[in-house]
């Protein structure tokens, strides 16, 4: 294992060959380069001519240096140097890769994959078998070591590996390792997620076992880079608090938490800061209730793992509030309705449902408001009682019916009848509200002075009445009483929910009171205890929702209570679409701690040293380049390059080296993604309206089409409001057609038939409003579709459109829109005149009346075609500028027709309309 800082050689013994370089130097010095060869007529005079000083010609030093460098490069390349190589692991036995594929591995998964890939590449080079073991349990398959197998096979397995949305099970991994015999010399590499899971000494035991196999290298992140965990936000009356956990408290850390709505829209983005030394952070989600209710998902920004995501369900999001009115809904006088003010007050933070108590309880419900409901039936009382015990909040408002006919589902016993304050027969004045008692959940709410209570129901005095009282009037009579029953509350407001008895319902205090009371609820209450909730959507290790795998099982309440997150119950949504429940990873994992207790003598690496660089191709490329330079120099020294050829040779050499460099970089970066080529086309096609023609693959025809459309574009610019860009060629096999309102398709023999995929695309294009002008360019033969005979273009057309969705065609009727969409025309000459133009028969309803297909044979492009100077390219037959003008007019009509549809068809009907008006 030779290592030079971060440079490592795979075959370091080859470096010994560098010792040969001095010998090479000496040899090269001795052996001069081949002499120039020169023809010389007076050679007879040169024979036997002895030079005066006999100093042998030597190779120039710079040339020796070049060649030594070349040889050195080759030797270095053969030694196969790797930059930033991970320390080579020794041993010759199998390589065991223990991969923590838990949620905590998700945030830096690509780095992990790169590290694994390097290990595999190394194993591949040394031909070692590889065994794989993922430590996260997997749904459906038992824990087992995969392999030993070849590195290539292992690579295929690793490529399909993905982090699981639950913690590792290292105890099971340990068993799996023990279950298999290991030959001596095995090497273990633990690609760890760095997070402790299970008993504290488990990681140490696993490490020890792995070390006993041979040697162990642990690859893990620095504690500061370990995965973050988000706990479900706590919710109280004032708002929600985000809670985050991290493994290591060193340094302050700020992360952003994104709150996303149902459709993935960002609701808010809050920055949560871990103080220095703290492993926990919390942040109050400062959000209006309306927005808060929209939040579906809280995710730590830039941290893609199941642990960084908290899914929210109805319990957090919305409090379903059931409204029950004693009186029937009074649509005519809504302001007198019992529930009008209630629904207005509750709407911002609750989902309001109406109905009678029994129907409302069929669905989970957080709060139920009974507005002046008198006696409840026994069944209703019993069901409501159970619901309250389970955590429901029942808020009752008094009223005439309750005052007369009270039942026992009340926090206090009521006196029969009610009390009227400030009436005509009373000396007392309407009472104001006293400040709320400190122990009351309503404490702290400002009491507006103008709230007056004129009538109320009265509670029988009892010892604990004061304890049950949440609000009282200035004279001490309770206005709001409440009683806790089970997990829920039973609240009675001693006045009405409308403005009959008091103007409380008109005040802002009413809204605040209801909000506080609603917040007391436990969320959704009312699920059946033993109900099995099927998985609806589950998270993968990266925290993305996906459809549940077959191994995910329905969860019951115990799963949610115990936080039994694992392969059987992946985190995600369970239940039904309208009543789903979120199971978060944080139900099981409530803290992250760094991996600890590893035995001594373990090599450790981080993931930071990203990407080893194989220098071999670069070195070989450089050596090849030097070789080429040397060849040129040698040729020049021998006089084989004349001055003129030196330039050519140098240019060729430079070109070759650039090519080599490109090839080298392509070799080295063979995995870099290719840029998308289609974007340019789309951008060019959509930035302007453009005429387009179908590329036939026959250069002459394509040039003609282009020239023709250039001419038409020119005329369009001169005469109409259509300012089209320069025409584009469209390859129907590859390009997107949807950008073009009109396609010109010259049909000539010798063009390729479209593939089935292209036909499908064309059909889609025609169906969705595209228009194609088929030009068979073989005058007079267009009718042959019907007649079954025609020119060469027509027969090719028949083959081309086989499989296209061509509607029934007719010759252009006299009153067709095409005849008057811009100019009034009756004939459509092109380069030829007289051919028939065919259009769709019933183009009335779909595509705004534009025929999807036009077929003719007049070679319009030929008539439109202009050269660079704007001069026509081809004569028209039978001739005359008038025919060309008519051809241009047809082109303008056609473009107008394709762009504006039946806009001008009204004019077609003008005579009929006038006639009708006249009568």
């Amino acid at each position, binding site marked *: 294992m030779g290592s030079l800082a971060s440079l490592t050689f795979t075959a370091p013994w080859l470096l010994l060959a560098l010792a040969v370089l001095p010998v090479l130097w000496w040899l090269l010095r001795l052996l001069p380069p081949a002499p*120039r060869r020169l023809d*010389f*007529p007076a050679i007879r*005079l040169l024979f036997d*001519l*002895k*030079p*005066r000083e006999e*100093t042998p010609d030597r190779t120039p030093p710079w040339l020796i240096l070049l060649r030594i460098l070349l040889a050195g490069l080759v030797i270095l390349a053969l030694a196969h140097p790797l930059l930033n190589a991970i320390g080579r692991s020794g041993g010759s036995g199998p390589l065991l890769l223990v991969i923590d594929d838990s949620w905590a591995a998700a945030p830096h998964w690509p780095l992990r994959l790169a590290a694994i890939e390097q290990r595999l590449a190394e194993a591949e080079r040394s031909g070692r078998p590889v065994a794989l073991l993922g430590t996260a349990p997997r749904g459906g398959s038992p824990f087992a070591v995969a392999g030993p197998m070849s590195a290539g096979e292992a690579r295929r397995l690793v490529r399909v590996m993905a982090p699981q949305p639950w913690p590792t099970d290292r105890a099971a991994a340990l068993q799996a390792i023990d279950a298999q015999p290991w030959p001596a010399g095995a090497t273990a590499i633990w690609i760890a997620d760095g997070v402790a899971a299970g008993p504290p000494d488990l990681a140490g035991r696993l490490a020890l076992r792995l070390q006993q196999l041979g040697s162990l290298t642990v690859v893990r992140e620095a504690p500061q880079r370990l995965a973050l965990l988000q706990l479900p936000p706590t919710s109280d009356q004032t708002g929600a608090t985000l809670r985050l956990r991290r493994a290591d408290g060193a340094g302050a850390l700020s992360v952003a938490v994104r709150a996303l709505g149902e459709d993935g829209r960002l609701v808010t983005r809050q920055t949560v800061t871990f103080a220095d030394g703290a492993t926990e952070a919390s942040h109050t989600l400062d959000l209006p209730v309306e927005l808060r209710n929209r939040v579906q998902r809280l995710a730590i920004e830039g941290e893609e793992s199941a642990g960084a995501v908290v899914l929210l369900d109805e319990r957090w999001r919305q409090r379903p509030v059931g409204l029950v009115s004693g009186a029937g809904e009074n649509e005519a006088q809504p302001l007198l309705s019992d529930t009008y003010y209630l629904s207005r007050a509750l709407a911002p933070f609750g989902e309001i449902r109406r109905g009678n108590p029994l129907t409302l309880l069929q669905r989970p419900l957080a709060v139920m408001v009974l507005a002046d409901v008198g006696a409840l039936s026994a069944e209703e009382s019993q069901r409501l009682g159970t619901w309250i015990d389970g955590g429901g909040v029942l808020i009752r408002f008094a009223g005439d019916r309750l005052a007369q006919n009270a039942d026992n589902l009340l926090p206090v016993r009521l006196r029969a009848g009610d009390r009227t304050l400030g009436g005509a027969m009373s000396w007392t004045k309407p009472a104001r509200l006293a400040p709320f008692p400190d122990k009351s959940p309503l404490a702290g709410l400002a009491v507006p002075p103008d709230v007056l209570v004129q009538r109320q129901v009265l509670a029988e005095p009892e010892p604990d009445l004061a304890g049950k009282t949440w609000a009282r009037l200035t004279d001490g009579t309770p206005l709001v009483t409440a009683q806790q029953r089970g997990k829920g509350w039973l609240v009675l407001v001693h006045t009405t929910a409308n403005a009959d008895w008091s103007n409380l319902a008109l005040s802002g205090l009413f809204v605040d009171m209801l909000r506080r009371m609603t917040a007391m609820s436990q969320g959704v209450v009312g699920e059946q205890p033993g109900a099995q909730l099927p998985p609806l959507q589950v998270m993968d290790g990266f925290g993305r929702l996906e459809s549940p795998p077959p191994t995910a099982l329905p969860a019951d309440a115990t799963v949610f209570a115990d936080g039994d997150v694992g392969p059987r119950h992946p985190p995600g949504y369970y239940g039904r679409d309208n009543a789903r429940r979120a199971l978060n990873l944080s139900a099981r994992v409530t803290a992250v701690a760094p991996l600890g207790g590893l035995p001594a003598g373990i090599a450790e690496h981080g993931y930071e040293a990203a990407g080893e660089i194989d220098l071999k191709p670069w070195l070989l490329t450089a050596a090849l380049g030097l070789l080429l330079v040397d060849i040129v120099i040698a040729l020049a020294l021998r006089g084989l390059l004349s001055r003129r050829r030196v330039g050519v040779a140098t240019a060729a050499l430079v070109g070759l080296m650039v090519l080599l460099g490109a090839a080298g970089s392509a070799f080295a970066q063979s995995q870099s993604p290719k840029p998308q080529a289609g974007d340019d086309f789309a951008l060019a096609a959509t930035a302007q309206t453009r005429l387009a023609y179908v590329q036939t693959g026959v250069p002459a025809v394509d040039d003609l089409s282009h020239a023709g459309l250039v001419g038409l574009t020119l005329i369009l610019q001169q005469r109409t409001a259509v300012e089209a860009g320069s025409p584009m060629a469209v390859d129907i096999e590859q390009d997107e057609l949807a950008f073009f309102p009109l396609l010109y398709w010259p049909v000539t023999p010798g063009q390729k038939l479209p593939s089935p995929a292209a036909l499908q695309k064309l059909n889609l294009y025609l169906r969705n409003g595209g228009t194609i002008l088929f030009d068979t360019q073989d005058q007079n033969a267009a009718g042959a579709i019907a007649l079954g005979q025609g020119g060469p273009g027509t027969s090719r057309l028949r083959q081309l459109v086989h499989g296209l969705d061509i509607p029934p065609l007719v010759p252009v009727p006299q009153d067709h829109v095409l005849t008057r969409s811009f100019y009034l025309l009756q004939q459509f000459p092109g380069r030829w005149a007289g051919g028939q133009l065919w259009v769709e028969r019933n183009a009335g309803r779909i595509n705004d009346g534009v025929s999807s297909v036009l077929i003719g044979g007049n070679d319009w492009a030929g008539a439109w075609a202009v050269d660079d100077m704007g001069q026509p390219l081809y004569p028209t037959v039978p001739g005359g500028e008038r025919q060309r003008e008519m051809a241009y007019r047809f082109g303008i009509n056609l473009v107008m027709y394709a762009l504006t549809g039946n806009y001008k068809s009204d004019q077609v009907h003008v005579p009929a309309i006038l006639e009708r008006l006249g009568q």
Partner: protein
Amino acid sequence: MIPAESLQRRQRAEALAASLPPLLVAAERIAATVVQGVHGRRRVGPGDTFWQFRRYQPGDSRQRIDWRQSGKTDPLFVREMEWAAAQSVWLWRDGSPSMRYRSGPNLPEKGERADLLTLALIALLMRGGERVALLGSGVLPATGRAALNRMALLLTRAGTGGVLPVDSLPPAEHLPRHAHLVLIGDFLSPLPALEASLRQFAERGVSGHLLQVLDPAEQTLPFLGRIRFAGLEAEGETLLSRVETVRLDYQERLRRHCEGLAAIARTFGWSFAATSTDRSPQSALLALYLRLSAGSRR
């Protein structure tokens, strides 16, 4: 019949024809710059230049009587012109592979320069009315535009392996006495071989002129470093580890070779001159022509 072959031949002919006019034009342009010297035979004979009047003798053609001169005195006079007899000049230029050499892209090959000088000299001589033949071509001396074209064709074709011999030494051929012979080449062959070859001509009384065409690199050996030199005529190879160290020795050797060459020429009573491809062809041509005319005047 044999379309490929005939086509090939025709193509080559066309290529030659295309390359001919520039060579000819260049040669004629150079020839035109050289002032034509007088070289009458100082005897009565056919010619353009007046020589003397003599008394009419029976047998002379009556048409030859110069009536203007005869009118002045009693006897009849006949105008005689100086005999401007055309001389036969044989030319040879070295067509061996060693002439296909140039040391820089801006210099002509030695062979090109030799061709150019030869052709220019031919044009010049023909303008002077001389009869010219290419040594080794087997064609008798001739004059006139057609002959010039023919010789230009021969010269160019010789470069591609035609009729003219491509030895680095002039072919032994029987020349008439007192004929003129102009030899253009690099004369880098060993001196004994050269002397033996030239002696054949000298013994027959042929007066010769040697023009040595060299490349500047051959004169100075400007190379540096380790070079393996190879001959162009399969002479072999030699490796010099540091060329710059032997440069002085080489120049000394070359000087001695040239001196030897000049000595041979002197022995035979021939003229010798040297030029290099980086110098203008006109000066070399002028010098050669002057020596030729001097020789004819002798």
